[in-house]
């Protein structure tokens, strides 16, 4: 008979336990309560969210659909206030009473606030500007507040405090870390290692660290103005984050009469002492006297609980050996077991290189590793953790434990034992990965989805990939979706283009109707629009809804929903008359910011959508293409015109290129440059296509360079003898890229993927015999160019330039004077 399972706590342990039970086909109807108003998210990732390297979207583990699909009733934002174990009922904050046959308590911990004066505001809970670091709401609040403030103090120099300090640097200019103990991370590191870490944190990251710092008071009446230490020191700040430790959430459980000591007392089957049908897992559970504050042990507990509750007998959780391997604030740290020798016979091996910030210490007892501390270099952490976990005999040559003697060796999947842990965040072994591969899932992303290996901090992804490849007998299967041009149409680019031609699909909606199994897909529209326009030229049926807003209004949307206007200024050359006109328009329309762009153009920022047409008319200049996945600008240097070093007329060539290829659309932006000599003042080596004049009237053409989120020096495609040849080969290369690159694949990825030698064969040497076709195709595109700003007179669609902004403008963009 289906039993009623109730779970209190929808955090990492609670949700994971339910997953494990589902995987064992437990016959339960599941009801979950979580007092956070969300589905299940990866709490570990809050550090990354704060640091801005992860989005909120990226940290969700199970979305609402998962609960629905598995028949789980989720009560998010509902707190359990009392457990009536005698009647087997839980009472919630909405006044509801839910009966259960089995109950799991996974209430986790809360962030502990050390006693300090003035930390709480009687009206508001925490003083304004004071934050804990535990939940998504905490993190959101912290980011929102820190953004408008300057100086932050973090209280607590453990792992969490370090992460908080690192993340806050993203939002404020000055961060001080206060730690009550003598050295950082005193529970994982010995004093020496703690000091090395402190030196790195101060030197490399620029975070001020004060140890032996007892915070006694938060200063400020309405808002925080500083903190005061016990010795009287005052540190000015406007944001305070408390990361001084955690305490298990057990009050409600204790009040309900269940056994609570430091945590909820459980036995080896995770049963709450004295209660057959009540279990507890995670940070709130106390097992054999220990509480665990890391996820790996929780996964072990979840497995045992799930086995036991679904009827496997003889399973027991016997505790976890704690080890951590992390990047603390960007610095490698690993720690396991003892942090100091305990017996006279304990063998201690220390390696210390303070200049580089590298410190390694091993503690060995009876030939078995009982403790290790690594700072600044984690390359040997995985093998040390294995020795530590298993207690295997150590090599005679002790130094091989901390150094790769004879060069770095990558761990080879073949040599790893089956139970070697690959993913330390999610506790996935090599065996588990191989099992999934053997079960028929041969893609890296598929294996990651099924096992969650690599879905924590992500550092093990390369190893996961190698194991999948090895288990597959050499190569991982291609992930089919990874090769699709757009997510909504299951075809790679060449196949998609062939089908589009075969059925003569000239509009985005007709592609969806014919080729997309799921029908219309918003996230595929823009890629298809660009592709179709490239393929059909004048025959393309332009459906405006397929365009991104920038391409609908020919301007770049900004964070406050306004747009920017960038008039064309070929080669970065302008005239006094043009400048005067731009200045007049900027004044007339109260443009909040006038800025020179990295591509040598003038950006008029903060323009409301409805004003765009009138501004274009007043400017009466063509569009400068600062939006769209298209040919952007050609940056030029002074060149032989004025520069005493110039050997080629870079300005003239830049203007000629821009005149010819303006507005050309592609799978990604195309940014170009021309420099008049190898001094390279126009930065041509790092452009999608860059041209450099060299002595003797010749020009070098580089392709695949980048200086944005990726930095790459372009590859030399060829050297030619005239400006005409540069113009012709530029068009040919751009057309080849337009036809063959993946959606949003910039040339810095495209060129290395195809290989510059192969591209040279096609574009320069014409070994494939398609050069003439490429030239003709790009010529056709060039001929069909129309200045989009001409649309100002007659909008293409009703309300094309009507405002979409709220009456109250929401995120105010700062205006500088």
């Amino acid at each position: 008979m289906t039993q009623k399972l109730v779970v209190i706590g929808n955090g990492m342990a609670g949700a994971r336990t339910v997953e494990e039970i589902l995987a064992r086909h437990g016959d339960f109807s599941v009801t979950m309560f979580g007092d956070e108003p969300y589905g299940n998210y990866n709490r570990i990732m809050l550090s990354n969210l704060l640091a801005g390297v992860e989005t909120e979207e990226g940290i969700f583990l199970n979305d609402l659909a998962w609960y629905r699909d598995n028949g789980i009733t989720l009560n998010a934002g509902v707190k359990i206030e009392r457990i009536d174990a005698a009647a087997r009922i839980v009472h919630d904050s909405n006044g509801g009473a839910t009966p259960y046959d089995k109950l799991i308590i996974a209430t986790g911990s809360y962030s502990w606030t050390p006693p300090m004066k003035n930390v709480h505001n009687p009206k508001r809970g925490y003083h304004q500007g004071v934050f804990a670091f535990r939940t998504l709401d905490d993190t959101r609040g912290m980011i929102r507040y820190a953004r408008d403030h300057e100086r932050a103090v973090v209280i607590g120099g453990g792992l969490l405090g370090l992460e908080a300090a690192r993340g806050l640097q993203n939002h404020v200019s000055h961060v001080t870390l206060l730690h009550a103990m003598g050295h950082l991370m005193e529970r994982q590191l010995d004093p020496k290692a703690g000091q090395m870490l402190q030196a790195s944190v101060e030197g490399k990251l620029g975070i001020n660290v004060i140890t032996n710092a007892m915070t006694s008071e938060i200063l400020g009446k309405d808002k925080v103005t500083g903190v005061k230490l016990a010795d009287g020191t005052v540190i000015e700040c406007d944001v305070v984050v408390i990361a001084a430790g955690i305490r298990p959430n057990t009050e409600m459980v204790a009040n309900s009469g269940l056994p609570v000591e430091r945590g909820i007392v459980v036995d080896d089957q995770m049963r709450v002492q004295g209660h057959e049908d009540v279990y507890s897992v995670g940070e709130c559970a106390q097992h054999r006297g220990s509480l665990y504050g890391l996820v790996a042990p929780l996964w072990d507990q979840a497995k045992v609980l799930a086995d036991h509750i679904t009827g496997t007998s003889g399973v027991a959780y016997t505790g976890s050996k704690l080890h951590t391997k992390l990047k603390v604030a960007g610095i490698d740290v690993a720690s396991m077991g003892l942090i100091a020798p305990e017996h006279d016979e304990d063998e201690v091996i220390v390696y210390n290189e303070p200049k580089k910030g590298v410190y390694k210490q091993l503690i060995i007892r009876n030939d078995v590793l009982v403790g290790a501390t690594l700072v600044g270099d984690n390359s040997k952490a995985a093998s040390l953790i294995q020795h530590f976990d298993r207690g295997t005999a150590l090599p005679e040559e002790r130094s091989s434990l901390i150094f790769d003697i004879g060069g770095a060796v990558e761990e080879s999947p073949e040599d790893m034992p089956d139970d070697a842990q690959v993913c330390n965040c999610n506790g996935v072994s090599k065996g588990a990965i191989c099992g999934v591969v053997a079960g028929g899932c041969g893609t890296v992303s598929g294996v990651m989805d099924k096992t969650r290996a690599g879905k924590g901090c992500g550092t093990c992804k390369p190893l996961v990939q190698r194991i999948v490849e090895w288990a597959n007998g050499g190569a991982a299967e291609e992930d089919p979706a990874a090769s699709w041009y757009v997510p909504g149409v299951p075809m790679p680019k060449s196949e998609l283009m062939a089908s589009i031609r075969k059925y003569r699909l000239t509009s985005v909606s007709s592609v969806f109707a014919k080729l997309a199994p799921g029908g219309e897909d918003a996230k595929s529209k823009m890629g298809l629009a660009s592709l179709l326009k490239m393929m059909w030229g004048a025959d393309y049926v332009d459906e405006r809804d397929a365009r991104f807003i920038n391409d609908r209004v020919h301007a770049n949307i900004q964070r406050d929903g306004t747009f920017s206007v960038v008039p064309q200024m070929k080669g970065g050359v302008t005239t006094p008359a043009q400048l005067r006109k731009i200045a007049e328009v900027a004044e007339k329309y109260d443009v909040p910011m006038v800025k020179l762009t990295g591509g040598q153009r003038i950006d008029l920022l903060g323009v409301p959508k409805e004003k765009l047409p009138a501004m274009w008319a007043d400017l009466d200049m063509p569009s400068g293409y600062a939006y769209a996945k298209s040919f952007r600008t050609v940056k030029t240097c002074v060149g032989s015109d004025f520069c005493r070093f110039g050997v080629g007329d870079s300005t003239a060539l830049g203007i000629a290129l821009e005149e010819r290829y303006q507005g050309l659309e592609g799978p990604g932006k195309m940014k170009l440059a021309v420099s008049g000599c190898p001094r390279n003042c126009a930065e041509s080596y790092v452009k999608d296509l860059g041209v450099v004049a060299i002595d003797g009237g010749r020009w070098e053409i580089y392709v695949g360079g980048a200086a944005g989120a990726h930095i790459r020096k372009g590859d030399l495609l060829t050297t030619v003898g005239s400006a005409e040849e540069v113009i012709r080969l530029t068009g040919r290369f751009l057309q080849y890229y337009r036809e063959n690159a993946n959606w949003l694949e910039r040339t810095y990825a495209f060129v290395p993927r195809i290989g510059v030698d192969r591209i040279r064969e096609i574009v320069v040497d014409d070994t494939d015999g398609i050069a003439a076709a490429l030239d003709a195709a790009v010529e056709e595109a060039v001929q069909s160019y129309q200045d989009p700003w001409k649309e100002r007179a007659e909008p293409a669609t009703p309300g094309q330039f009507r405002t979409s902004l709220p009456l109250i403008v929401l995120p105010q963009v700062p205006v500088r004077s």
Partner: protein
Amino acid sequence: MKTTSLVNLGPVTDIPLGEGRTYAVDGDMIAIFRLRDSSLRAVSAICPHKGGPLADGQIDNAVVVCPLHLFAWDLATGCSQSGQPPINVYPVREDDGHILLGD
């Protein structure tokens, strides 16, 4: 839903197929979308993430994608697909070529 009475927001042809436009109704800003199957959807005009103008977003028959950070919301339920707060949805229909907002 605040509006209990019906409001006529003008001809449906004011909104191109597959796009959205913002309307001010009783001091509220509401984005109305005209799906490619020509049915209408009405949701709050302001993205709860960072205030993006949702009517400038791209849609399909199920979701609207905010133009600022590309998070998606379900047009029928207002639920976020990415753990963001939900947006309001409002009853809306077409009558004799006009957009009628409200029950």
